[in-house]
């Protein structure tokens, strides 16, 4: 039993995480740079023009990738929150704390890139009848709620557990909101003027570019989250021996 769960408890140690990620980060940076370059160059230079949308379809490559990634924040925070509440693992909270602003930023980027694309393709910056826009907006609000709750509670441990609970409740809610908004819209309007789904009108070249971009954005998410968490570790553990030694080494 002890052996099987050892990795889990080690994972909870900020020091272990810091040391491991020091080794992982160059690889992650490299992979991210590779995928981002390939994805962006492909989307901007080599992707053929869409017969209906022209050059604007290139925005979708970025938009779909960012949107897909931004959907993973609430599940991530809910899992981290469960670990915080059940095992009181400090590291999980450090990840969750930094995931919330990142998630809000990704949701905002999704809305922004979607609006820019929509302004050309739909002729409007905002469309209430598109359920994805609406549910993303409310996910954005909920993430702002998590951030402001964290900011309002002074005691760090109370804030951690309160935000953990809110993330779990919020995760369930985001799913319910998503489906109810979908339902609401299918009743008001059977389909959007132009489907945002990566579907048949777009050939495999579009698909592959999008998948490359999704991997790139996920790597970007991983790198940003790891960097932010490492920063958090150094701040919270600033009194620990190993952090002091690290600071001395760095000068």
């Amino acid at each position: 039993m002890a052996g099987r769960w050892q990795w889990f408890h080690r994972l909870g140690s900020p020091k272990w995480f810091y040391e491991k990620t020091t080794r992982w980060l160059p690889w992650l940076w490299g992979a991210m740079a590779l995928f981002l370059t390939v994805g962006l160059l492909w989307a901007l230079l080599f992707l053929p023009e869409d017969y209906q949308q022209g050059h604007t379809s290139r925005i979708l490559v970025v938009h779909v990738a960012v949107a897909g990634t931004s959907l993973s924040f609430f599940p991530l925070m809910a899992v981290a929150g469960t670990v915080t509440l059940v095992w009181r693992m400090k590291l999980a909270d450090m990840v969750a704390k930094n995931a919330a602003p990142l998630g809000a930023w990704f949701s905002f980027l999704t809305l922004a890139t979607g609006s820019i694309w929509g302004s050309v393709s739909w002729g409007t910056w905002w469309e209430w009848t598109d359920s994805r826009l609406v549910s993303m907006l409310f996910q954005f609000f909920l993430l702002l709620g998590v951030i402001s709750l964290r900011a309002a509670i002074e005691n760090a441990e109370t804030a951690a557990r309160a935000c953990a609970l809110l993330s779990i409740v919020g995760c369930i809610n985001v799913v319910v909101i998503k489906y109810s908004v979908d339902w609401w819209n299918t009743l008001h309007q059977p389909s959007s003027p132009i489907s945002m789904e990566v579907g048949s009108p777009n050939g495999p070249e579009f698909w592959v570019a999008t998948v490359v971009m999704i991997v790139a954005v996920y790597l970007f998410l991983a790198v940003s989250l790891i960097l932010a968490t490492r920063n958090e570790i150094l701040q919270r553990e600033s009194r620990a021996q190993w952090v002091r030694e690290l600071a001395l080494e760095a000068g």
Partner: protein
Amino acid sequence: MSGTNIGTAFLATLKRDLLISLKRRNDILNPFMFFIIVVSLFPIGVSPESAMLRQIAAGVIWIAALLASMLSMDSLYRSDYEDGTLEQLLLSSAPLYLLVFAKNIAHWLVSGLPVILVSPLLAYMLALPSEGYMTLVASLLLGTPVVGMLGSIAVALTVGLGSRGLILAVITVPMSVPVLIFGTLAVQNTLAGGSPLGYLALLGAMLALTISLAPVATAAALRISMN
């Protein structure tokens, strides 16, 4: 702890909260008046024409009910927190989620029910066709407790904090979206000649889900806030 004692604790909490509310009339009157005032602003701000009002009536009443519920929620655990009652509830041997549920019921009876009772009158003033009244009242009866119990989680998370008005709104509003959608759809569907039963059933399902989960989450939130 025997079953009767748990029942006694539940009823005692319910009775106590109702008594306190009856003695502080503002708790009852404020959300009620707020609801009426908000609704009466719409004809002035949007359009006084009944053709327009008829279309927005259900949505306006639902939104005003949500806002009124949010306004009243702020006081849900505050006085209990300030006078130490909340700590006693946490120390009680009766399960906390049950006591929380009793408080939620009391709060809804005091702040939600009056709003629902006056809603047909306001629906009439907003020119809602009379066949929509029953559906509106039924949807509010099923939906407002959901909003109240979800809000109760947010209030419990922020119970010790000084300024929390906006946090409460930012957390509660997105959570109320599904209820608002199905509540207004039920009324609109009735007016269009359809049956509202499907939407009311969905609201009922949400109510059942919320009753089973929200008090547990609120109890956990209270324990976190009170450390």
